[in-house]
């Protein structure tokens, strides 16, 4: 090995073996940075996942609703067509377009033109009535969706030839006059509202304006809605509690952004599986944590009053406590002599012991939150009610305690 190589090997040896002194406080400084960095990474991952889930939920709802509307549209069209009397639909089309349609031969075959005209009028009327009745039923179902009803008014004119041979003289037959009057009434056809008489039309008008009593919601034209939230939860067989305030901001017809501040306290437990040495066996590890949560979420509402929410929540821990619950068994053997015969009496003492851990769990805990429910009118306010679930991003503390919580979410909007 030449001198140059020895020289460089020596340099490598010196540099590899050199270690600086540890600076006191470096670990504490690093711990703070590590916690902040982990929380930031968790937050971004949670935000990304929540955004993906929200978009997925939104598009799923949109697709399902479009599919439902399309199916309903097809059912209405099918309902108007009577398979036994296919020519009825042709009559319908003729009325819509305001055209005279040549009559089927069955009608012309009947004795007398006047009679056939009357029959035709009655037939048209009955066709119209049946179609309108069916459509009215469908229209009622549509009222809950608050669709805007557009009416196309078509006048139905019946040509009566003032010809003793072929028609009925207007002045001669009161019956024909009544029919004529009836048929000159305007018929809203866009949504097939019944046409029997004006009072009935008035009834239908009020029907269109009527709000379905099953779902009554206060008309909310505000973009920002404040809510008081109460959320009892259950986690690891323990009851937990959360309360706070939420703000909802409308970003679309059905989408809202949610935010707020909620105080929550959680308890969780993990079985110790009797680990430990000697007489001391660990039964379970209990965690109690409380703090302020800042939830951020996206909510999708349907017109029927159902909602689904997904988002993330970051909890700033105010107080935490980790306790180890042990079962300590001590065995005592006492020898007594009874009647000259020594006997061993074994006594087993069992006692429970709780030790508090010195571990500091992280200052921030992130959760995925999912909820769904329905909205109900409560006095002059709206009450949202439904189940929810909170899933932490990771386990907490060195004992890997799972803080998953599920419960009921109540919020009163005002």
């Amino acid at each position, binding site marked *: 090995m030449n*001198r*140059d190589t*020895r*020289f*460089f090997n*020596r*340099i*490598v040896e*010196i*540099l*590899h073996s*050199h*270690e*600086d*002194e*540890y*600076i006191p406080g*470096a*670990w504490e*400084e*690093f*711990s703070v*940075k*590590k916690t902040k*960095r982990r929380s930031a990474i968790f937050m971004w991952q949670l935000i990304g996942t929540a955004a993906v889930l929200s978009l997925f939920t939104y598009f799923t709802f949109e697709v399902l609703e479009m599919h439902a509307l399309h199916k309903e549209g097809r059912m209405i069209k099918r309902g108007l067509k009577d398979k036994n009397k296919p020519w009825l639909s042709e009559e319908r089309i003729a009325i819509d377009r305001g055209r005279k349609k040549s009559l089927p031969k069955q009608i012309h075959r009947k004795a007398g033109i006047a009679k056939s005209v009357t029959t035709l009028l009655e037939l048209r009327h009955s066709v119209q009535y049946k179609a309108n009745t069916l459509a009215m039923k469908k229209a009622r179902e549509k009222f809950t969706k608050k669709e805007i009803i557009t009416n196309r008014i078509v006048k139905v004119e019946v040509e009566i030839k003032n010809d003793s041979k072929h028609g009925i003289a207007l002045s001669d037959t009161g019956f024909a006059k009544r029919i004529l009057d009836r048929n000159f009434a305007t018929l809203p056809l866009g949504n097939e509202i019944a046409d029997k008489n004006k009072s009935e039309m008035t009834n239908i008008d009020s029907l269109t304006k009527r709000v379905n009593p099953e779902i009554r919601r206060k008309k909310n034209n505000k973009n920002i809605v404040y809510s008081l939230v109460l959320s009892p939860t259950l986690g690891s067989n323990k009851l937990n509690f959360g309360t706070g305030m939420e703000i909802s901001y409308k970003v679309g017809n059905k989408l809202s952004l949610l935010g707020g501040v909620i105080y929550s306290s959680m308890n969780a437990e993990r079985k110790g599986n009797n680990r430990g*040495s*000697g007489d001391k066996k660990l039964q379970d590890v209990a965690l109690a944590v409380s703090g302020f949560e800042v939830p951020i979420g996206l909510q999708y509402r349907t017109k029927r009053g159902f909602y689904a929410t997904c988002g993330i929540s970051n909890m700033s821990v105010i107080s935490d406590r980790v306790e180890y619950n042990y079962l300590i068994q001590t065995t005592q053997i006492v020898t007594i002599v009874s009647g000259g015969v020594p006997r061993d009496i074994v006594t087993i003492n069992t006692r429970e012991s709780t030790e508090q851990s010195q*571990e500091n769990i992280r200052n921030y805990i992130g959760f995925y939150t999912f909820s769904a429910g329905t909205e109900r009118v409560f006095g002059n306010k709206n009450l949202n009610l439904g189940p929810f679930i909170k899933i932490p991003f990771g386990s907490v503390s*060195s004992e890997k305690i799972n803080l998953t919580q599920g419960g009921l979410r109540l919020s009163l909007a005002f």
Partner: protein
Amino acid sequence: MQRKVPDLKDIIDGCTKKDFRCEELLYKSFYGYVSGVAFRYIKERETLKELINDAFLRVFRKIGSFSFDGPPEEFRKAFKGWIGKITANAAIDRIRATKVIFYIDDLPEESQIEIAVEAENNLTFNDVMVLLDLLPAIQRLIFNMHTIDGFSHEEIGSKLNIPPNTSRVYLKRAKSRLITLYQADLQ
């Protein structure tokens, strides 16, 4: 009850499970070594502290991927080498981010300083650092990466965005300059 003192394998296992006690032990045990590696690349104190913490963050994030199948007595050395490489990578990324690499390495004659260097058996850490500081930045960087930390020329080329042959040229120049400075004293 006597508490068992954890060895390096136990500490690494604990760090994989995110045990904060093991992480603290590992940090304090290897802080000096990581600091020495980082000091070869970065001289400013504040940046050095940040670099050390960045290096440890990377170590804790990737510690699950460390594995060693050799003899047990070489385990610590292998782990030190692994940590050293992570630290060097962190330092190079920081240098690239601050863009302070200068590729002009021909110093004018009057700028060459001859120093008194101990014979190689009496070389100290400070002597070595003085010698390295006299090199141009790019030569010092490539010398550290290749000779001290074991990067290949291809790896150096991809990290610094230079051709591998350029890396070889810079390394050759760095070595000849170090020898020149060292021999000047011995003569």
